[in-house]
């Protein structure tokens, strides 16, 4: 049976009359709250409150309870003395690689694969990652994330992205690897290039945040602020320089709902499995490589060669080269390694910023290659070199002008 145009519309009308109930929709309290979280005037203070809760929970759960409360004691007072005493061949190269400095009083300073490597991966990073993914999943399942995307859309358009770029940006605060994959939600090549470059350069991962909280608790806010400013400045520049389009998006905002415990548990577990697979092997490999470089004398040679750049341009001690090399494997490991180098508070801030904005860790590097291809990755790397030179040097200039460098 073939229907004419009019007959088809008549049929549609008949079906809709039978199946759709028409009436005036009465707004509920949930709708009212949903609207408040999307409108800029009310939504921004709410977003600031949500971020406060996020950060406070992250610090209390990961820092106060697990790392400082239990893991520091377990690793520094029980495990480290035990392994230093019982591991055979003290003073030998294998001992140096696996256990590290035999005189070290804590796991941060020992820098062996089985001491610092395990402590960083399990004692510091794991609680931070659990806290981060738990909160992120709760916000996603509750329905807050799409609202945050709508709220921040106008701001992100200034840097060539749209509201949904908030998803890879926030995911990146947990781990850059899934964040690179999440960049697929951005439609154009230009958007993906900007997002991948910005997240690799300016967004510290959860592991790095956890270590920063331990090593530079007082100045961490300054470091994050500096990175945030860089995210927007360089995003703005990239948007002007990179050709291509940044289209508008249409988001379906779901109603607020109570997260289901089973779903939350499953999502957190899937994300944690990814962390176990990618992060822990790289932390242990990073310790090994850096220790081999130290033992072979290669580290001293590289430090001497790059000394004019490190000390002259960036104003940090030449010993920072060790952590910078380790940063290619794991950035959290590199920040932890900085704590063993003697330097001023301002040099420490510069070093942490350098580690954050310099080359992405190898896992992110591989993901970027997969997502962008060789040409895109080369473009991102060129941007990174420019950023690290300009932004790192600028920080040194600020310290000189303040009279603290």
């Amino acid at each position, binding site marked *: 049976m073939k229907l004419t145009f009019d007959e088809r519309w008549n049929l549609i009308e008949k079906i809709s009359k039978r199946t759709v109930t028409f009436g005036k929709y009465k707004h509920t*309290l949930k709708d*009212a709250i949903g609207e408040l979280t999307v409108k800029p005037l009310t939504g921004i203070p*709410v977003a600031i*409150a949500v971020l406060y809760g996020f950060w406070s929970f992250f610090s209390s759960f990961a820092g106060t309870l697990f790392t400082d*409360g239990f893991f520091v004691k377990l690793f520094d007072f029980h495990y480290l003395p035990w392994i230093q005493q019982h591991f055979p061949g003290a003073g030998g190269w294998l001992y140096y690689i696996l256990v590290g400095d035999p005189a070290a009083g804590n796991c941060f300073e020992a820098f062996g694969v089985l001491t610092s490597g395990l402590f960083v991966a399990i004692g510091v990073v794991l609680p931070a990652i659990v806290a981060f993914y738990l909160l992120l999943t709760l916000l996603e399942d509750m329905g807050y994330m799409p609202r945050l995307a709508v709220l921040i859309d106008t701001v992100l358009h200034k840097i060539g992205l749209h509201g949904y770029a908030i998803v890879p940006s926030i995911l990146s605060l947990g781990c850059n690897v899934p964040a690179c994959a999440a960049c697929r939600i951005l439609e154009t090549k230009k958007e993906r290039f900007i997002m991948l470059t910005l997240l690799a350069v300016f967004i510290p991962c959860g592991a790095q945040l956890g270590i920063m909280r331990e090593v530079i608790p007082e100045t961490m806010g300054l470091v994050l602020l500096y990175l945030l400013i860089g995210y927007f400045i360089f995003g703005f520049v990239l948007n002007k320089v990179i050709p291509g389009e940044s289209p508008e998006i249409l988001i379906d905002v779901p109603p607020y709902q109570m997260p289901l415990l089973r779903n939350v548990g499953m999502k957190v577990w899937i994300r944690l499995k990814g962390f176990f697979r990618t992060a822990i092997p790289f932390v242990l490999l990073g310790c090994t490589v850096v220790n081999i470089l130290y033992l072979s004398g290669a580290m001293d040679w590289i430090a001497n060669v790059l000394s004019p750049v490190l000390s002259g341009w960036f104003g940090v001690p030449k010993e920072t080269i060790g952590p910078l090399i380790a940063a290619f494997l794991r950035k959290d490991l590199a920040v932890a390694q900085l704590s063993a180098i003697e330097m001023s508070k301002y040099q420490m801030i510069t070093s942490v910023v350098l580690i954050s904005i310099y080359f992405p860790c190898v896992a992110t590097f591989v993901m970027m290659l997969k997502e962008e291809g060789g040409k895109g990755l080369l473009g991102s790397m060129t941007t990174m070199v420019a950023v690290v030179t300009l932004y790192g040097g600028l920080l040194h200039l600020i310290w000189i002008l303040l009279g603290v460098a």
Partner: protein
Amino acid sequence: MIKNKFGSIYFGILGMVTVAFGVADLLVTIGGESVPWGILEIPADMFRGGWGGFIILFAGVFYLLGVKNFSEIHQQGKVVMGSIMIWIVAGCDIFGMITESIPGGEEGGWLNTLEGFLGTYTPPYSPAIFLLPFSLVVIYYISLSSHK
């Protein structure tokens, strides 16, 4: 009608007190030294006093914006949002106390002693914790709106 009138007056007063606490938080943070006042202590650190104070201030503003024409659902939404913001700050303060109270500290055992555990919960408390019980009244209005 009477319930809404009461709600309007109650949250109006609570809004003014909340704004005052928020402003006090910010001023004390600018001053740089925390102010103890009996069992109340206004923190001076940038995180709890500055950032937290800013949220408390806006919670108060939300209350004040919501009290006019209180029976209207969008107005009640503002009051509920004000309470949620207080719950976030107070909840974080309480969670911080809980996480501090469990481990035994560097010198002690793995877990805290009963004395040390209970000692963490003794006053002084932050302004957000003081506002918390008063903000819970909004639950009554949430339940009223869900029965409508």
